[in-house]
């Protein structure tokens, strides 16, 4: 029979929408509006699981987050989610659930349950300790039996999402208190977010029988919710559990959008809401507390609040004959409602002597027997409760005072009061205070930006909850004296009497001889367990918790902790207040990893930076090396080559002919200003002030500790204009480092720093024939050693764009690094390969780059150095200024006595005795092969390769006193215990006299005018994506800009930024932070003090460069950074939703106006977001991030409908 316990009328379920579902393999039918728990109860399912340790049958006990027994695993569409409370799982068609405690490993547990008397509390701490080996056996068995549910091992096909929110007031909980607080805040015009964990708003109002304004409570809820929905300043989030309150008003909530089943059409299954709230109202209510008595875990024993909720909200009578045991007035409502639908109330046992008269008369009217000063001491029944033993209590309530009655029943509801849900407040490091009058842990203190209202404060009537809701807003906004216009409804209720302090029924037998009296149902912790823990010496609740597992389940003691604390207080002769609570930590209820991960999984896990030539590398079959966030070609295997074969071929091409490397990822920092040279001299260990314009110099950047931080070539482009190169991975840290010193220590220097890494694409043409390739590429340039010497730079015109050609070398070969604005990068790369083809030009990747540099003994900062190496250690003392005239960062430290030790680790080369064996990087070096420990470490290998040039293995290593140990033999310890013998040699293996990179002019290769280069500009590096129309309206449209110019404008960092009020200046360049001005087709965006970005859009044909006033031009440096950015327009009705997903900034109109521009994180990359003024925003991202950001936008927009137009 279907739904045998469903009432014919009433409730919030939709009887016209039946939903089929299955539980433990059986099929059932429930209704729309049911939870899994209410549907199971409607179908008369008593047993929903078995207890963890004792294997006892368990039924549903509660109706919300407190439920300890009905823990289920959901299965749908091949995915499986463990650890869900059936009381919180909304019923959907086809839902399939299993109880986690009935799964798989039941056999072991069933057997183990027979021996439970031999498994006292602390069993694992006491047994399987000696001999050691028993644990190895025991652990396997325990592991098989342990745990609730099974983890889904395939990848999760569902979509998860995140939103960033900002609001004035966050109201947690939408019951009577929360709804009134929300409405009061909304009335004040505040930005309000209301979050409630249930599918419907109303909280307790959905359960109660009381009427508001002489109408069912739901009509009041509907009216308030409709009013809130209608306001643009209110966001309502149902099915959203605020699970944590963090620093600075950050609240985290998880919204369940698709009812725990798989998602469709881009609608995420769950959405994590990161809410930055100025102020928070906690209206989280309270959870009812059960009585502790013998066999209190039988199915059919429930909380009165759950009985009432199932009856009124879900129209489910959980049984036929009810016995209620209570210590308070509120629980009577369940018995009265039970009676009023025509069910039998066997009796009410109230342990109090002073039961309010109106309750007595209400019971008399209904002819419900009341047992005054009685309680339930034991329940009986096999599969469900069948009988309750009710006894009279002594005056002090500690003892049984007479003969009891046995009452037949199938529902036993027990209540000892309410536990306010103070968890979120406790997350802000405030403690709870035991209140003897309210018999509850209440908030002890509160941050001034948090207020609480309703049952969380112990409020006992709906009217009091509503008044507190309004008062909470008045308190937070300091408007205590201000009337907030608010018609509170009339409610027919009397203020209930106080709850009596009574948690555990006495039993005729000793607690450890009586039937089990459960405190923690989920982990089977009993009264006797806690008493045993006390006898064994545990006194504090935190220790008892860990010893007995009290409160360790996924309910985290919501139901049983106060009862447990009471048992502990009794056993230790202290009071509940002395014991206190355990620390509440987030999350309030379990959160899926999917929600925490959001869409940052798979391809979108972390931003990928791509060079402008990326697609070519893909097409050419490159293998990839991740360098920071960059994707760099590692090597190109042709026709089934092994990696070593490919690298050997690439190395020999560079040494013998010509090879080409995409070096675009190299960090580049533009340094300008009249003190640029002074500044660079202080930041590098060698001198740059005397560097001639057009020349380059290798420099070492030290920390002030004297340790090498970075290295690279710096070029002087003009008297006050330098270009600093950094290693790929250090581009950002070096810029920050330079900014730190400039802004904090030497702010009197006029220095303007701009990252131009993304602006330039770099093609390194390397090898003895590289000059011939260059000669064809730019025949008008004199490439002789005299006019274009080693370590110099020239700016040449390559068709419509300027190129900077650096004659530098990271390989020891003749080499030119050609830099063009990034939009010309791919075109140049293809052209160089075409021109170089007759010379056998070979593209190579990072592995070959490493081999080439290691052959020359060139270090890589971060690979050969680890932050503890000085220039002397690295045999680079030639790079340190010897004169005393300039103090540079790190200088003083180089004189520290410890740095003069001759046994410091120093850079040397190693040659293995067997020339084919390549040492492992990181391998430890010993003087002699020994397995004795500890062995005296002589150093370690930092780089090791097979050198095709030398046809042998080579390695760089840090060796103690290594510079004086050339010729020594060392032994490298391998993982398998063997050793490799190697001799210490110079770190320069190839061409120690640097002849190769200076090879002379070869006249025969010139005089050939090349055909048109045919360089072309590409707008961005974005991969083409599928633009299939989805048939839906596009909520987000993405357009990539084609014709635009971007200049970074940098003013003096010393002079007054407003240039002493020169007319016209501020009308063009905004001085107001985070705003833009426009002139014709150009927007000038504020980036920082004395720093702007000029974004000029044009159609190719009609382009006329903007004519700027002379005072702007003469006072501000213009840096063409067109290539450094990709520009997109985002338009459509859902752009704001997309921004909420991508960016933590608050795009509300009160913060982000039509004249605003803001730099922030966007999808974990950085972006400049510029208001378009009409619809949507323009988005500027650094070019290398563009592909990733577009893929993110496409993915995140799917649920709104997405269209792009490149």
């Amino acid at each position, binding site marked *: 029979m279907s739904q045998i316990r469903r009432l014919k009328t009433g409730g919030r379920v939709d009887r016209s929408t039946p939903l089929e579902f299955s539980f433990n393999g059986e099929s059932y039918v429930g209704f729309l509006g049911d939870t899994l728990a209410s549907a199971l109860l409607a179908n008369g399912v008593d047993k929903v699981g078995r207890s963890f340790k004792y294997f006892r049958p368990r039924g549903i006990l509660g109706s919300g987050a407190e439920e300890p027994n009905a823990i289920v695993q959901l299965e749908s569409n091949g995915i499986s989610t463990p650890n869900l409370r059936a009381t919180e799982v909304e019923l959907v068609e086809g839902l399939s659930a299993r109880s986690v405690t009935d799964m798989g490993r039941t056999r072991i547990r069933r057997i183990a349950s027979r021996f439970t008397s031999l498994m006292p509390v602390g069993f694992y701490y006491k047994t399987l300790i000696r001999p050691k080996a028993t644990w190895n056996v025991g652990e396997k068995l325990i592991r098989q039996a342990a745990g609730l549910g099974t983890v889904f091992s395939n990848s999760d096909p569902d979509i998860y999402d995140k939103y960033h929110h900002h609001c004035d007031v966050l109201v947690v909980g939408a019951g009577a208190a929360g709804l009134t607080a929300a409405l009061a805040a909304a009335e004040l015009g505040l930005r309000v977010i209301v979050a409630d964990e249930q599918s419907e708003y109303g909280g307790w109002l959905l359960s109660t029988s009381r009427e508001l304004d002489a109408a069912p409570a739901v009509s009041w809820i509907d009216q308030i919710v409709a009013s809130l929905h209608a306001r643009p300043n209110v966001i309502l989030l149902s099915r959203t559990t605020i699970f944590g309150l963090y620093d*600075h008003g950050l609240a985290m909530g998880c919204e369940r959008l698709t009812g725990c089943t798989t998602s469709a059409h881009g609608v995420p299954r769950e959405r994590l809401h990161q809410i930055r709230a100025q102020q928070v109202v906690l209206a989280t209510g309270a959870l009812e507390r059960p009585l502790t008595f013998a066999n209190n875990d039988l199915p059919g024993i429930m909380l009165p609040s759950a009985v009432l909720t199932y009856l009124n909200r879900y129209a489910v009578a959980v049984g036929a004959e009810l016995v209620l045991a209570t210590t308070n007035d509120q629980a009577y409502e369940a018995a009265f409602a039970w009676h009023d639908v025509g069910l039998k109330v066997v009796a009410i046992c109230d342990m109090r002597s002073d039961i309010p008269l109106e309750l007595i008369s209400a019971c008399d009217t209904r002819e419900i027997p009341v047992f005054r000063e009685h309680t339930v001491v034991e329940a009986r029944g096999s599969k469900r409760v069948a009988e309750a033993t009710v006894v009279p209590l002594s005056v002090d309530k500690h003892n049984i005072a007479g003969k009891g009655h046995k009452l037949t029943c199938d529902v036993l509801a027990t209540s000892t009061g309410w536990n306010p849900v103070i968890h979120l407040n406790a997350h802000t490091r405030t403690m709870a205070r035991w209140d003897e009058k309210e018999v509850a842990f209440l908030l002890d203190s509160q941050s001034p930006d948090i207020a609480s209202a309703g049952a969380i404060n112990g409020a006992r009537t709906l009217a009091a909850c509503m008044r507190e809701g309004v008062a909470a807003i008045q308190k937070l906004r300091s408007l205590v004296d201000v009337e907030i216009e608010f018609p509170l409804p009339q409610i027919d209720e009397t203020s209930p009497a106080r709850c009596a302090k009574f948690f555990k029924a006495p039993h005729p037998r000793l607690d450890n001889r009586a039937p089990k009296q459960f405190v923690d149902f989920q982990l089977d912790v009993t009264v006797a367990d806690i008493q045993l823990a006390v006898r064994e010496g545990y006194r504090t609740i935190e220790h008892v918790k860990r010893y007995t597992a009290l409160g360790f389940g996924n309910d985290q003691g919501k139901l049983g902790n106060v009862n447990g604390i009471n048992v502990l207080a009794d056993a230790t002769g202290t009071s509940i207040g002395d014991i206190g609570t355990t620390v509440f930590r987030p999350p309030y209820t379990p959160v899926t990893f999917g929600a925490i991960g959001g869409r940052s999984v798979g391809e979108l896990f972390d931003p990928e930076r791509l060079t402008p030539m990326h697609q070519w590398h893909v097409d050419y079959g490159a293998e990839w090396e991740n360098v920071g966030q960059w994707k760099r070609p590692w090597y190109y295997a042709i026709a089934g080559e092994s990696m070593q074969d490919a690298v050997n071929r690439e190395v020999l091409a560079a040494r013998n002919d010509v090879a080409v490397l995409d070096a675009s990822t190299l960090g580049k920092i533009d340094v300008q200003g009249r003190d640029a040279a002074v500044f660079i001299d202080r930041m590098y260990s060698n001198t740059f002030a005397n560097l001639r314009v057009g020349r380059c110099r290798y420099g070492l950047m030290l920390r002030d500790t004297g340790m090498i931080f970075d290295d690279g070539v710096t070029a002087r482009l003009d008297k006050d204009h330098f270009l600093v190169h950094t290693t790929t991975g250090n581009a950002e840290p070096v810029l920050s480092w330079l900014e730190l010193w400039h802004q904090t220590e030497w702010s009197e220097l006029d220095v303007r720093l701009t990252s131009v890494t993304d602006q330039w694409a770099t093609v390194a043409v390397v090898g003895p024939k590289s000059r011939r390739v260059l000669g064809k590429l730019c025949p008008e340039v004199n490439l002789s050693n005299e006019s274009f010497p080693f370590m110099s730079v020239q700016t040449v015109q390559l068709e419509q764009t300027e190129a900077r050609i650096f004659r530098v070398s990271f390989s020891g070969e003749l080499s030119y690094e050609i830099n063009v604005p990034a939009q010309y990068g791919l075109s140049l790369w293809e052209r160089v390969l075409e021109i170089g083809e007759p010379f056998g030009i070979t593209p190579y990747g990072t592995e070959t780059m490493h081999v080439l540099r290691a052959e020359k003994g060139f270090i890589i900062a971060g690979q050969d150095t680890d932050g503890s190496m000085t220039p002397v250690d690295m045999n680079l003392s030639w790079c340190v200024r010897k004169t005393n005239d300039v103090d540079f960062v790190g*200088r003083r430290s180089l004189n520290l006595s410890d740095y003069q030790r001759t046994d410091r680790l120093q850079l040397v080369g190693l040659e293995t005795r067997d020339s084919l064996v390549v040492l492992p990087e990181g391998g430890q070096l010993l003087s002699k092969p020994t397995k004795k420990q500890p062995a005296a470490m002589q150093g370690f290998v930092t780089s090791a390769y097979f050198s095709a040039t030398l046809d042998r293995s080579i390695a760089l290593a840090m060796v103690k006193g290594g510079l004086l140990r050339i010729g020594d033999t060392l032994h490298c310890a391998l993982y398998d215990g063997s050793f490799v013998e190697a001799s210490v040699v110079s770190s320069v293996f190839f061409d120690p006299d640097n002849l190769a990179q200076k090879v002379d002019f070869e006249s025969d290769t010139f005089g050939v005018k090349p055909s048109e280069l045919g360089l072309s500009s590409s707008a961005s590096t974005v991969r083409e994506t599928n633009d299939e129309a989805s048939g839906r309206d596009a909520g987000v449209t993405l357009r990539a800009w084609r014709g635009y110019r971007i200049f970074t404008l940098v003013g003096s960092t010393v002079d007054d930024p407003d240039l002493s009020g020169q007319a016209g200046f501020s009308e063009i360049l905004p001085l107001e932070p985070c705003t833009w001005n426009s002139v014709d087709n150009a927007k000038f965006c504020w980036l920082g003090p004395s720093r702007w970005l000029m974004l000029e859009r044009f159609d190719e044909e009609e382009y006329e460069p903007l004519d700027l006033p002379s005072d702007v031009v003469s006072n501000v440096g213009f840096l063409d950074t067109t290539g450094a950015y990709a520009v997109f327009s985002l338009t459509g009705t859902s752009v704001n939703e997309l921004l909420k997903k991508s960016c933590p900034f608050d795009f509300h109109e009160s913060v982000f106006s039509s004249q605003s521009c803001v730099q922030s*994180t966007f999808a974990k990359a950085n972006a400049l977001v510029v208001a378009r003024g009409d619809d949507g925003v323009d988005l500027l991202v650094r070019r290398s991030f563009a592909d990733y950001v577009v893929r993110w936008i496409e993915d995140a927009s799917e649920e709104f409908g997405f269209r792009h137009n490149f």
Partner: protein
Amino acid sequence: MLRIYCPYCESVRDEDEFHCVGEAHINRPANPEELSDQEWGEYLHFRTNPRGEHREIWHHTVGCRQHFNVLRDTETYEIRRVYRIGDELNADADADAD
């Protein structure tokens, strides 16, 4: 996660946008060569690490790329004051802190 007021962008932003550089008001000695190894070592390595109020330099890495000072309570994470580089922490000065 902290919410930090940037005194240059004049708005409150997420901690993700910033980078904490370390203790503020560590002045580099004017004449390093005149210091003993010990004195120089103290400048390099010794920091106060207090429980309670701590003066720190933060860098608005993702935003305006400016460094500024933050007075933060290391116990409660409360940010008491935000002030520009070069300014002294002064109780009488106008508070920029949010």
